[in-house]
């Protein structure tokens, strides 16, 4: 087997050195009653060419996005990934390494994370960021835990209904057995209903969590929400599922958020059926020692050279065990690297320009659709690159109809939002050409004629 380098001669010599007759003897510590007595029922190993043939067979049964006009967003975004990203992340010194426990031979990973942390701070307008979390949803759940831990006696958390449903569900799972009370706040005109928030804000509330943009693609009024939360000494947690919006809209940090988490997939990670993505997690200085996850800090080596190292480990599970700030013991290293490369390539101007393209295209499309008979825009809050339309025909039927034309029209939001059964969430990125958008408009119109 090509992954197993042992020759028969090697095995023989090694057994002799160990002093046993056969590898079987090495398992003598396993009682007979704990042994598997039959071979595993798995197919025999395949040649590499056959592996790829089988996997290509499976891959061919999927809707590869390039073959479709896709307007799907809803937490995963189809952005173009420059070839440089994959080229660099394929350097195996990066991806075959593990957590940089030995900083002397891990400065590549460490400097990369330090730069990642910095760029996340810059984007979110926050003081510090960790080395990344699993994804936006779990980062958001960890943010809730942080807020509750920080607030001590407070155990109530207000969740905007317009927060991504997966994020809300994940928070619910994480909080399930932790004496945290989750209260959902309704929306009004596509954004969190401030008038519902205000009466709930009291000394029981640890945090308010809102999306930015939220699941409807709408831009929340973070200043007002922050002011409200802060008036009750609660934290405002802002979850960003489409971080490209931060290149155009004011940063949550600037608007008063206390914790900014989100999903970084938009920045250079393939859609990959929803994972791996990457959670980012940024806080104010005051919460430094409550942060979950890995942190990289700057220091010097014995020769005084600038160096980077994992730091503040006393927050973590391998030191603090049950008192740790989280059970997380890794980051999404490879994904953080991809995000960093993507951000470095686009830089200050490129990210802005890209955000503007996304904005312009989605707004053009939105207007076209709004002008179609029977279609309407249920919300007029500002949006970035996705928006909800209400449709004159059942959404499921409409989607199926458009699939016949190789169009993935958008995400039906009715399942998660009773009352919004006619709502279709349509996302437009730089990957949607004008021609695709015109085709969508024509196809949508086609059903109403």
């Amino acid at each position, binding site marked *: 087997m090509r992954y197993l380098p042992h020759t028969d001669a090697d095995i023989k010599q090694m057994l002799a050195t160990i002093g046993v007759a056969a*590898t079987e003897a090495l398992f003598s510590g396993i009682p007979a009653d704990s042994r598997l007595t039959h071979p595993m029922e798995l197919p025999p190993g395949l040649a590499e060419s056959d592996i790829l043939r089988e996997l290509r067979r499976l891959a061919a049964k999927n809707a590869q996005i390039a073959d479709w006009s896709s307007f799907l967003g809803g937490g995963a975004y189809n952005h173009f990934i420059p070839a440089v990203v994959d080229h660099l992340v394929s350097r195996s010194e990066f991806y075959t390494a593990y957590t940089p426990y030995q900083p002397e031979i891990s400065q590549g990973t460490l400097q990369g994370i330090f730069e990642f942390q910095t760029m996340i701070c810059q984007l979110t307008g926050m003081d510090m960021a960790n080395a990344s979390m699993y994804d936006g949803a779990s980062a958001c759940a960890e943010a809730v835990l942080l807020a509750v831990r920080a607030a001590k006696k407070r155990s109530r958390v207000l969740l905007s209904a317009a927060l991504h449903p997966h994020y809300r569900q994940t928070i619910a799972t994480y909080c399930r057995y932790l004496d945290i009370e989750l209260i959902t706040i309704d929306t009004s005109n596509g954004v969190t209903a401030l008038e519902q928030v205000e009466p709930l804000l009291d000394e029981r509330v640890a945090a308010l969590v809102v999306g930015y943009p939220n699941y409807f693609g709408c831009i929340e009024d973070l200043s007002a929400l922050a002011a409200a939360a802060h008036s009750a000494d609660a934290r405002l947690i802002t979850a960003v599922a489409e971080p490209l919006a931060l290149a155009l809209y004011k940063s949550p940090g600037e608007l008063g958020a206390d914790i900014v988490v989100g999903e970084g997939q938009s920045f250079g990670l393939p859609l990959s059926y929803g994972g791996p993505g990457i959670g980012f997690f940024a806080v104010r200085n005051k919460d430094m020692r409550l942060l979950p996850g890995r942190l990289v800090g700057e220091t010097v080596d014995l020769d005084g050279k600038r160096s980077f190292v994992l730091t503040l480990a006393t927050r973590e599970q391998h030191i603090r065990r049950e008192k740790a700030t989280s059970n997380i013991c890794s980051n999404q290293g490879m994904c953080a690297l991809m995000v960093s490369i993507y951000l470095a390539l686009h830089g200050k101007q490129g990210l802005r320009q890209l955000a503007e393209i996304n904005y312009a295209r989605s707004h053009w499309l939105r207007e076209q659709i709004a002008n179609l008979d029977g279609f309407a825009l249920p919300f007029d809050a500002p949006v970035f690159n996705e928006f909800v339309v209400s449709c004159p025909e059942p959404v499921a039927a409409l989607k199926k109809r458009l699939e016949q034309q190789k169009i993935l029209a958008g995400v039906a939001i009715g399942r998660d939002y009773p009352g919004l059964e006619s709502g279709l969430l349509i996302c437009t990125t730089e990957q949607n050409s004008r021609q695709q958008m015109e085709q969508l408009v024509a196809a949508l119109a086609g059903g109403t004629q």
Partner: protein
Amino acid sequence: LDEPLLFEQSQPGRIGYSLPDADVPPALPDIELLRDEITDFPELSEVDVIRHYTRLSTWNYGVDSGFYPLGSCTMKYNPKVNEVAARLPGFAEIHPQTPEALNQGALELMYRLERALAEVSGFPAICLQPAAGAQGELAGMLMIRAWHEARGNQRTKVIIPDTAHGTNPATSALCGYEVVPVTSTGILSLDAVAAVMSDEVAALMITNPNTLGLFEANIRAICELVHEQGGLVYCDGANLNALMGISRPGDLGIDVMHFNLHKTFSTPHGGGGPGAGPVGIAEKLIPFLPLPVITKEGDSYHFDYQRPQSIGRVKSFYGHFGILVRAYSYILAMGGEGLKKATELAVLNANYIRARLEGAYALPYKERSLHEVVFSEEKLGGGCHTLDVAKRLIDYGFHPPTIYFPLVVAGALMIEPTETESKQMIDDFCDAMLAIAAEARQDPDTLKQAPTRARRRRLDEATAARKPKLRWRSE
């Protein structure tokens, strides 16, 4: 030559991107919503970015650089065909909001992977969703608690041996449990468990083989005991690489186990992640599986969300699909026989290291260990410590083993070679270890000054923690 930070290389107006025209009339949000430019964000050309990360990569040591015997992390070779597989456009470029009917290949792959993991582990059901081992633990322990709650049973404690990974207690805490430690002398005795087991205990968390590399020989009896008293048993599957085709946790009475696909199933460690942490569970826990569950009806595959007792989701979408593809590709390559062979050779390698080094390094536990071997610093001469051995190994061209873990061994050196290392490589490593033991006696300063051949000498970690500088700022 040092590599400046991205920000330090930035030049105003330099660009590294190319973007299409908007092709529609320009539009912008209201001015009061618009952000200013992102202060200090980098501006670089494509070649700047290429050189920056190319150079940074050469400051790193990975499995492809050489031997990486980091104990408990199973740093086996990451096959390149897996990387090709994960990048097939039909896997990498599929959107999670696409209707199920249009991504049947992805669902089929996940279904087949579940079946393969079930066969390897002996558990009837598998959930692929957790993002990493620690999240797998969380999902598993939440299911345990949900099971107890469904039975109206409000237990509050979890027993955890002192050899356990730190994630075990941290996860228990996340599930609202109190941790009851139990001392393990090499392996866990039935008596030790009996002494702390009670009707307040929801579960025992155990690692098998444990972090000393020892098979928990009393595992069946322990499971029976815990079950008899109404508890469940969680197994940390970090060390599954020692058991494939030899022993199946699901057959031993264990109720839940997480897998680390990046350990046992060869997906890359990625400099820290992403991994994937599927969970295998016993029949009785099936109603509590995270949402959604993949089902097969006839020849088609579906996500089932109609599961009222589910603990819910632990993350967005369906797991680290890109990692699942790699693990499935590995299983296809190895087959059942290959996986068993991998286990046998991993154990052979560890025992060979043990045999070669046990004269020179102290071996606190004498039992036959499996896939890893833990030495202590006890016999080291010249006032040298485990840290010194580790740093000196760098000078010899090797990645150090895991050090100072498990906590029960003073100055532990936890060596896990995995099966993808050849006898020649392991001999070179053992020769280095023996040379270092000799150096410790004869020339301890060589160890204490190590490393000298790396990009950096030892770091001032104390200052890093005392005055944390966690981001770059312009002066």
